[in-house]
């Protein structure tokens, strides 16, 4: 109960702060839109190529963009944490009796809300380009995207608390981001690649989400790939949240 209340209080603080900084919102909106407008035209000739899944180009590409958005919004959470660490805010919160989980999850929750709004805009723009919406699939996909963003957000926040300063944090996060994104087939399906790449991708949690997202985008919900994505993301999310809460509980200089 106390955890829920504290999470609510901190969520409110972060969402108000985000709305007061519109520049940030504009940048956040423009990235996925730019992908849609400037990258989709390149894919026109791909259907029919061996390995390319069936369905329209946007049914393949747009779920990838949503996954990318969730991944990026989560993994950038730590930049704010570094700033708050250096401004003394984290310490100010840690010395109050506020729930440690709430100190972690309050800002992540506000990130989820903004991400969901971005997602809605991306889907709306996608519809303009010919994306066909399957509502039930989209709803399940939204849950998967929340899981991914929470997982990455908790990981990023805890990494920020451990590294404590911006250059070390950026090195770790950027070093991890690129291989994970490339090995997930976010922009182009991994199924286009050679066998070794396809095998390697199975070690990447994001890969499962991207494959499930493409299945859900064409309205296929009760499929193996969807269950696999939940089976990978749910335990991983719980594990990383527990670790990040522990980092908050322990000493942070």
């Amino acid at each position, binding site marked *: 109960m106390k955890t829920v209340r504290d999470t609510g209080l901190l969520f409110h603080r972060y969402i108000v702060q985000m709305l007061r900084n519109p520049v940030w919102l504009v940048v956040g909106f423009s990235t996925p839109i730019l992908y849609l407008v400037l990258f989709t035209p390149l894919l026109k000739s791909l259907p029919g190529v061996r390995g390319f899944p069936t369905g329209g180009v946007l049914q393949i590409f747009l779920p990838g963009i949503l996954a990318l958005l969730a991944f990026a919004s989560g993994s950038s959470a730590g930049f704010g944490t570094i700033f708050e660490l250096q401004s003394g*805010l984290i310490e100010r919160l840690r010395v109050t*009796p506020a729930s440690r989980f709430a100190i972690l999850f309050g800002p992540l929750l506000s990130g989820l809300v903004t991400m969901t709004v971005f997602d809605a805009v991306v889907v709306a723009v996608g519809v303009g380009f010919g994306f066909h919406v399957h509502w039930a699939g989209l709803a399940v996909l939204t849950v998967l995207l929340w899981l991914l963003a929470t997982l990455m957000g908790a990981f990023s926040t805890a990494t920020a608390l451990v590294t404590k300063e911006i250059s070390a944090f950026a090195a770790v996060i950027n070093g991890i981001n690129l291989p994970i994104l490339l090995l997930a087939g976010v922009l182009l399906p991994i199924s286009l690649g050679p066998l070794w790449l396809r095998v390697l991708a199975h070690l990447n949690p994001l890969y499962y989400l991207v494959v499930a997202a493409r299945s859900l985008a064409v309205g296929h919900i009760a499929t193996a790939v969807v269950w696999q994505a939940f089976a990978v993301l749910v335990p991983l999310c719980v594990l990383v949240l527990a670790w990040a809460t522990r980092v908050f509980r322990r000493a942070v200089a």
Partner: protein
Amino acid sequence: MDAIITTHELKKSFRSPRGSVDAVRGVSFDVARGEIFGFLGPNGAGKTTTLRMLTTLLPIDGGTAVVAGCDVAHRPKAVRARIGYVSQLGGADAMATGAENLVLQGRLYGGDLATVKARAEALMEILDLAEFAHRKVKTYSGGQRRRLDVALGIIHEPEVLFLDEPSTGLDPQNRANLWDHVRALRDRGTTIFLTTHYLEEADALCDRLVIMDHGEIVVEGTPRDLKRQVAGESVVLSLRDADGAGERASALLGAQPYVRELSDEGDQVRLYVEDGGEALPQILRLLDAEHIGVRSMHLSEPTLDDVFLRQTGRSLRDAGSGTGDEGRAA
């Protein structure tokens, strides 16, 4: 004594690439309810580390600490509910208003909205922040920001308020103003624990203090008693640059019966004498006879710096500058 903080052999060490550094080496002291208690010492003496252990921010390596009736190591949550803490950084949200900061803080301590709002309003009145209550903190001056930090630390009416180097970065006027507010808080019943490396602050503000150096308590007492231990008054002689003037003057003056203690600090010689007024003319005559030129001469009551000097052989003003924490602890 009705002690609100009791520590026994408190210890903390940090691992560094060159091995373990003992930041706090067995510190024991009591703080009485309702007093302003100070930790004075150079940077790296272990003041902040001790304070961070008492406020549950750092795990304790050895020894025990009881704050407001709760053991810090075993009941950190209970301790957090009973204390307030203002770090060197403050930690106010720059993009939010002062009032918003206070309301969030009060609610995180469990207060309901109406109570917290009323309390925030009253506090901003007391701390001369009422007219800035609904401005963003980023527009605050240094002094206003510091007062808001203090308000954040006492929004939940804690039994003890911890202040880490409260007046760092403040100009003398704002510093004096902050001191007045801290005294007023004590007069309303809050116990204050503060760390400082400013002698003047410790002297003017603290009811009782300990002087810390290299992770250990060097001496403990009221500012007045501590200064009284350094008998008499101090005379600081600044000499003209002649060959070995300092050494010659030290040898000469050290042999005089009215000089109790003497320290040669290069071009300065510091002496402690029973009666300054009587000693000054004698010192001048003596140096004149030996043709040792005096640039200036300065007579003062003993300060806490004299106490520190006597206990550690160094001046507090010199001890803090230059090297970092590890250098000091070595």
